[in-house]
């Protein structure tokens, strides 16, 4: 995969380029927006990493130019600008994600994978957080200890709801909303019962209880 990195800071640019190479990407590094636009004209890239504080042409202007040319290349902004306004302008301007400096390379790579997956339309029918993974087709869950555990449809729906955004806490009523349709009578401890069953099948560390708030699966391990 070929990546275009537009970053004016030599140390950061160097570090990212080398890390991308380590991660088996082909990375071209340019130091200002105009060169970046020129590179996009001559080569086909799978993804662009764009810094906002660029000399000459600002990152947001570069983004606007790219989108004005109807170039749908996946684009991820990496910047030190943390104001909500900048973030919104970046995302509204057609960026696929926004990463704030300082960041970990591991996170950048994960976000790149997510953007590529979304843009490619080839989302794997698999949800996971590193502790547990859920196959959306076979409705089977796997952990390090147990693999291919069959789940009931309610158990599957509950685990899916939690795995859509790992790290997010879902309250009992939110889980009930997602599991039961209108008019369905929900028993008072139905959610606890399902979570108990899931923990018995997959291990108690898989689903965490947050006292007074609800349940969650860990974000990453």
């Amino acid at each position, binding site marked *: 995969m070929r990546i275009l990195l537009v970053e004016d*800071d030599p*140390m*950061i640019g*160097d*570090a*990212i380029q*080398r*890390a991308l190479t*380590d991660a088996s990407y082909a990375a071209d590094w340019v130091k200002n927006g105009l060169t970046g636009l020129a590179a996009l004209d001559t080569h086909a890239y799978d993804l662009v990493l764009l810094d906002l504080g660029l000399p000459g042409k600002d990152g947001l202007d570069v983004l606007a130019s790219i989108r004005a040319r109807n170039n749908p290349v996946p684009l991820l902004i990496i910047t*030190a600008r*943390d104001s909500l306004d900048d973030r919104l302008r970046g995302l509204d301007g057609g960026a696929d994600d926004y990463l704030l*400096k*300082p*960041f*970990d*390379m*591991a996170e950048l790579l994960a976000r790149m994978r997510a953007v590529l997956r979304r843009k490619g339309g080839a989302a794997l029918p698999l949800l996971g957080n590193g502790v547990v993974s859920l196959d959306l087709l076979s409705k089977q869950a796997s952990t390090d200890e147990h693999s291919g555990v069959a789940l009931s449809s309610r158990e599957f729906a509950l685990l899916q709801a939690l795995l859509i955004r790992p*790290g*997010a*806490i879902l*309250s009992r009523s939110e889980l009930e909303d997602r599991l039961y349709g209108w008019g369905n009578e929900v028993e008072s401890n139905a959610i606890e019962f399902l979570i108990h069953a899931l923990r018995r099948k997959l291990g108690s560390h898989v689903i*965490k209880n*947050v*006292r*007074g*708030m*609800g349940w*969650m699966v*860990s*974000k990453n391990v």
Partner: protein
Amino acid sequence: MDGFKKRLTESVQLRLSVALALAILLVAALASVFAFVSAFDEAHELQDDTLRQVAVLFDRQQMTMRYPEGQGIEGDDEESRVIIQYLADGKHALAGDDEVIPLPLPTTLADGLSTVEVGGEAFRVLVRTTARGERIAVAQETGGRDKDARESAWRSLLPFLILFPVLLLVVGDLVRKLFRPIATLAAEIDQRAEQELHPIDEQHLPTEVRPFVVAINRLLERVAQSMDGQRRFVADAAHELRSPMTALSLQAERLAASEMPTQARERLLPLIRGIERGRKLIDQLLTLAAAQSTANRPLATVSVHAVYRQVLEDLLPLAECKHIDIGVESVQDVQVIINELDLFTLVKNLVDNAIRYTPEGGRVDLTVERVQGVARLQVKDTGPGITADEQARVFDPFYRSLGTEEAGSGLGLSIVKAIAERTGARVHMGFTDEINHTGLCITVSLAGER
């Protein structure tokens, strides 16, 4: 007396009151003397006129005169009576007696008014030669005359006696009223928080004070600018530090991913932790700068439980690392009107602090309740707590409790304080366990309707 003198030189109000009072006193005194003298003279002239009229009456109506004998008649007062006699009869009268008429007046008196001593008492005497050629004398005792004149003169002073104290009261009241806007303004400025550097309203002030207030406003503006400059500098500096920090952490991460001997890896770990700490500090500095800036943030109705949830989602990994049981105790959610990011930052820093200072296996509880219209948010932990003498200092930037090994930024509570001051929230510190004085319990009270 010295105190009064000092106050006199320092207080314009007192000086004005005293000067006006003295001026009124002086003018009143001069006016009184003048009024007294003129009223006195006027009375005398009036009495002289009476003598003249009596003489003319006698002359015009060609009266004949008989002197009284024996007992005096009712209503005749020796002191104030008017006596009429032929001047020539004076020499038959008993010398040295002013009781009986005729009086022993000297016959040599010339026509006109004169004051004559008779029997040890002064008399005012008018001598007139009538059309028939007789010389008559009309006389009155001066004692009675003077008494009447004095009485009428004193009466003329009465208005001044009433006016003087009334004027003093009016002046005192007026001066106090004129200075009241200044006192009100001083009280208003006194109640301002340190960030409230908006200009003083000069519209309703006397023109004499206005230049002073305008000058103060200019100073306030300069102070606000310089404070703004400082805050911007901190924000810019932290911002600028982000890039080198990013480069540093990326390089360290790359280094960690490469093959290296165990010893090198052991030495790399503290380096990575140090970089992580620097990143955290920069983030907190930026948060503090943002919390202190006076920019208006949009307010909204915010659910406290929703904010608690976001904070817990962020900080749960940290709590799990230390096996801390963290959770929300209150069942009922409370809505408050505040900027959501402000409340999030405030709660996050409190909870972060609680997790940091609670030992392994401890417990952190979040609660919210509404007490008499005030939303009361509480974060309780089972850490060592903060003693009363430390409580004031923990809000200072970079302050760290003695004996803590925690690698916090030292800015968390400063951020809490800055947000609380800006949003009008009150922060109170206490102990989770009031009896043993352990565990920190921070209460944030937010006024605001449901």
